[in-house]
Each structure stands twice: as structure tokens, then as C-alpha cells.
């Protein structure tokens, strides 16, 4: 059975437009506000939702996402609460794919099998776990596949042709191309360079390719959405929450930026 992720990406492919993938942190700045933000994302134009699982030591993330995780943890956010958020979201939305993104330790500590069971029941469709390269597929990737959850792998500028097949091997749903070697929220990539990399990856796989890291504006989303199957925006949305005067304003600002970004991906291929 095709997962929600595959159904959604197939449908958008038929429309000839890229998906907008949003990233926000569960529990940032608190449980209720991040749930409100989450619930409004599809209406604002998010096609796929990535929800961050906060971790104290996010080694691949820049300052914006680091601080978001610490804000969530300060509010006593837990893995249980992240799953609960998704359950609440699913009561109203059965179609929008949700991908949890984070680091391995909180899942490992929760217990892999127990986590996969609870995640599956909550309505989670995919996992991105930054510190689990294909060398460790037996830890979570293969068990997730057995539980019907897509394990979405990151490919990076350092992933050469020799290594790509290994990275792609057990990946499902889509492949996430990290457009710059660096942490989240870093410098913007040049669309030309990214397009070349996407072409290189397409030679190895039929999986849809999402591009992320450093994309902050509708213009950038449009430029990348011209050739990528999905465009991921995270740090820019997180910054809205950080900079807002109030919790409600944070949610409003996130949704406003998502609307702009969604216009960006919608016009990407129409010019």
C-alpha cells in the first residue's frame, strides 16, 4: 500500500508542481502553540509536514533550530507529547503526511519497537534521523520499513556516486538532498549547483527528491521548485516563532510565511 507520502507526491507530480515541506519543532514555544501552528499548516499551503523531535544536542542544526529545541525542552516537552500532538492533528487531517525529524537517542531511549508502534498508531508516515547513516540501517531504518513507516535518508554534497546507491538502498518516501555541506539555516545554495546535484541523484533513483537547507524565501522556493520534487523550509519558519512578540503572533507569522512559500512553489514551473 502506498503511504500518505507517496500518494501526496504522486498527486503533485501529476499537477506538475513541487511539494512544499515545512519544518517546525514540536513543543516550540509550547505544546498548545506548536499544535495550533501544526493544525494550520495544510491550510496555509504545506504539502508535507516535518515535525522536529527536540533534542538537547542537535549536532547538525544551526542556532535557530538549536534554540527551538531548547525552548521546547524547557517547556517539559517529551517524545510522548510529540506523538500526542500528531494524534490530535490526525483527528482533523487524515491526508497530510507527517514526518518526524530528529536524532536517534530519544528514540533509542524510548525503545525502537515501542516507538515505531506508537508512531504508527499516531499516524506518522516517515522518519528522518540525522545521525543514522546507512551503516546503521538495522537500528531503525529496517524496523521502520517493517512497521510501514518511510525512512527518509539525507544525501549531501559529500555523498559521491560511489556512495549514493548505499544511501538510497533502504530509503523510501523521498530522498532529502541537503543542498549545502553545513548545519540547518546556513548559507543559501545556488540553484544551478543544486540542479546539477539533483540530476546526478536522479540517475540513481526514481524516488522523489526534496531539497532543503538554507531556503528562506518564496523566490528561493520557486527557484528550487522548478526542478526539485519538494522544497523544505525550516529555520526561516522557526525564526518566525523566535522573533514574534507573542505566542499567537508566532503561529500567525509562520502561517503567513508558509502561504508565501506555497505561492513560490506553485509558480515555479509556470513561468
Amino acid at each position, binding site marked *: 500500500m502506498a503511504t500518505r507520502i507517496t500518494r501526496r507526491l504522486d498527486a503533485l507530480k501529476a499537477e506538475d508542481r513541487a511539494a512544499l515541506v515545512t519544518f517546525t519543532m514540536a513543543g516550540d514555544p509550547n505544546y498548545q502553540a506548536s499544535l495550533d501552528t501544526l493544525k494550520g499548516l495544510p491550510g496555509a499551503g504545506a504539502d508535507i509536514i516535518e515535525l522536529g523531535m527536540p533534542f538537547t544536542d542537535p549536532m547538525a542544526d544551526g542556532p535557530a533550530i538549536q534554540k527551538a529545541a531548547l525552548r521546547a525542552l524547557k517547556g517539559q516537552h517529551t517524545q510522548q507529547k510529540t506523538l500526542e500532538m500528531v494524534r490530535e492533528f490526525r483527528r482533523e487531517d487524515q491526508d497530510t503526511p507527517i514526518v518526524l525529524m530528529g536524532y536517534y*537517542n530519544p528514540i533509542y531511549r524510548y525503545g525502537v519497537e515501542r516507538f515505531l508502534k506508537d508512531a504508527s498508531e499516531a499516524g506518522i508516515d516517515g522518519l528522518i534521523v540525522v545521525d543514522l547513516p546507512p551503516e546503521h540501517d538495522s537500528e531503525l531504518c529496517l524496523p521502520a520499513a517493517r512497521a510501514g513507516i518511510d525512512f527518509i535518508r539525507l544525501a549531501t554534497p559529500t555523498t559521491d556516486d560511489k556512495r549514493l546507491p548505499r*544511501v538510497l538502498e533502504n530509503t523510501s518516501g523521498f530522498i532529502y538532498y541537503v543542498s549545502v555541506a553545513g548545519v540547518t539555516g546556513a548559507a543559501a545554495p545556488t540553484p544551478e549547483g543544486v540542479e546539477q546535484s539533483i540530476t546526478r541523484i536522479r540517475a540513481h533513483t526514481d524516488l522523489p527528491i526534496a531539497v532543503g537547507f538554507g531556503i528562506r524565501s518564496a523566490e528561493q522556493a520557486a527557484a528550487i521548485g522548478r526542478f526539485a520534487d519538494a522544497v523544505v523550509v525550516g529555520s526561516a519558519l522557526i525564526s518566525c516563532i523566535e522573533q514574534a512578540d507573542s505566542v499567537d503572533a508566532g503561529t500567525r507569522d509562520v502561517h503567513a510565511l508558509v502561504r508565501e512559500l506555497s505561492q513560490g512553489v506553485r509558480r515555479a514551473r509556470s513561468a
Partner: protein
Amino acid sequence: MSSATDAIKRFSKGPDADGFYGDFGGRFVAETLMPLILELEEAWEWSRTDEAFRQELEGYQRDYIGRATPLYYAERLTEHLGGAKIYFKREDLNHTGAHKINNCIGQILLARKMGKKRIIAETGAGMHGVATATVAARFGMECVIYMGATDIERQQPNVFRMKLLGAEVIPVESGTGTLKDAMNEALRDWVTNVDSTFYLIGTVAGPHPYPAMVRDFQSVIGRETREQILEKEGRLPDTLMACIGGGSNAMGLFHPMLDDESVHMIGVEAAGHGIETGEHAASLNGGEPGVLHGNRTFLLQSDDGQITDAHSVSAGLDYPGIGPEHAWLHTQKRVEYVSITDHEAIEAFKLCCELEGIIPALESAHSLAHLRKIAPDLPGDHLIVLNMSGRGDKDMASVANWLEAHGDTDKLPDTTVEAAEPGRIDDMQPPHDVAKKTGETE
């Protein structure tokens, strides 16, 4: 034949091809770093068997570091404790004042071989930062050191040293501003500058091959100890002791004798204010298995898998994890792991100064404190080798703080403690006015 060798090398043969020691170790890193880690593994494998590399390394160990370090009979301490015969392996006499440089010189030779021009490192107490800055200067490489803001406060003399050696010291404010946060930030730098940069990890932690590679470079401690004790006593020691933060000085001492089953080994973790208080750095005695900084090991963490803060009076032990090989040796019960509080460490520190004329690093003082507990009850022919992993000059401010906070003021100077009196050079901060600042102890 190989199975016979494996049987003999029961404890020293790890890790396996994926970098695991039993359940511990591995390569839990972001994809961006994987190709580089595999490349590093190749370079390390090459270095293990290449004769020219070995000769060059030995040349620097001898002429630059000052090896072999002495195995010193601590006669007055032995008499004072009235039991076991105590030797110190004098790693404090190395160039830069600790065992750290053993590893740095090895890794920088690999960095050069791999064509890297920029060296980054994390540091806690600053000893690894100083050793890294030292070899970077020696080999003409750019050097960036990440150091927690809290540690910068309590280790000013080492910050000054690193700057004199030409390194850029970047304060890390995130988290608790200690070693784990410095390591996060170094990993972020590495991910960003992956082509140009060599990450010179200072302990037997991190993704494979670091734990094994650092162990190999530190094993010179144990190899020398083995030869020296055989020469002095005609037999192997009964007990080896070393302090453990990440665990590199201990692995270096233990590894060459892991398969000598008569040799008992004790690793000493930092219990801070006491394990029962939750404010400690004893990952094995007070932690649970988890994944951080590229490897699975015992970690200080919450039930929800969030890493919790370590505490120790000694900045070098203030890390919420431990090398994966130690985690394995712990579960195999090959090595005994104990813990020592701040208070016990300070008392042992004072004793060593007064009896042996050696100012030990606060890290090493933890193993001295456990030595005090066990030596009196052991017979006079029981040989103990304690790894004096570093010298305590860097710890003057921390010790003064602690003594002041505990009303033990008879030896304190009138105003502040200065570990050195360097002249002011441009923007470099001489180590002044640090004794009162940190309020690290209660």
C-alpha cells in the same frame, strides 16, 4: 590460528569492522561526515602498519614530547598509606603537561597525510586544546579550538596558552557551555568545512575510528609502563589506575595489558557532589546506554533521552559520556569503574603536593583519591601503577576557588591566584582575576 589469536586477545581485539565493541561504539553521524570518516579510517588503518609512519611518530614522541615518561616510585606516598607499593606513570612530564599530546601528534601526522590544512578541536580543561594548538603550530596549520564559555572562565591560563600558540579560541555558549557543547560546535564546524578540515578529537569517543585511533596513539603509555615495571620489578603490576572523563589516558594505560588477566584495572570517574545528588560526571556509575557524538555508550541522560549536564570540579572530567570501549569493558567486568567526589579529589590533590612534590591535575587527583582508599589495605608487595595523566598548574584557580568556598583558606594568597604572569599582548587575556569568578562549587 586466527581463532587462537582471538582467544588470547580476548579483550584487546576490538572494535569490529563497523566500529563496535559489543553493543557500544559505531558511527552515528550525519551523512555529510560519513565519506570523510571512511577516508579517515583508511588513513588510520594505513598508519597502523606503515613502518615509515611509525618511525616518524616515534621520533616526535622522543624528541618533541619527551618520551619515554618515567615510571616513578612514589616512596613517601607509599609509606604514608602503608600498604601497596605505588608507582606513578609520569604523563604530567610530557610536553604541554599531560597525556593529550600523545594523541595530537599522531592525529596531526594523519591530517598532513590526508592533505588537510585546518585543524579543529574541542576542549574541556583546555589541555587537549593546548596540545592541539601546539602540534598545529609545529606543523604550520590553521587551528580553531571550541571551548565552552564556562570552561573558558575556569581555565584562563590554558586559553592564553592556546592564543599564544596561534590558535583561535571560540567560546561556546550553547547548552551548559562545557565540553559536550564544545564537541557539538566542533561537529557543526566540521560538517560545514568538511573538505578542508581535520577534526582532532581529544578522547576515545566520537564515531569510529576515533575511539580506536586515539586509543592506539595513547597506548604508548601502557606499552612503556609494561616494559618499565618489568625492568624495575621483574613482573607486571597488580593494579592499574587512571581517571576517566572520556577515558583516553585510561585506555592508553590499560589497553596493552587488557589480556594480562592478572592485572586488575580501575577507572575512576568524577562523582562531583556525589552520585546521589545527580550532580556528577560518572557516566558508567550513574548513566544509561544511549547515542551521542557519533557513538553508543553510557550517557548521563533523562528518561526521555535528553542529555543531562555533567558536574565535576575538574573541567577535564566534565563530560556526560565515556569512550565506548570503556562501556564495553564495564559490561564485560574486565575493568572496575569507581567514582570519586570533588571533595575527595581535592584532599588527594593536597596530599600529593605535600608528600611527593608533584602538583597533579585535578583529573589525576581523582585516581589518587581512590588510591588513598584502597592502598592501605593491600599488602606491601602489591604493585599499583597510577597514571599521573597531567600536571595541575592549570588548576590553580579551580583549587583556590574550592578551598575558599570551603573555608580552607590558610594557603590562599591575599587577593587572587595567578598561574602565570605573562605580559599583556594585544587582545590576549592574561589569566588574571579568575580565582573569584566561577563560583563553581557551593
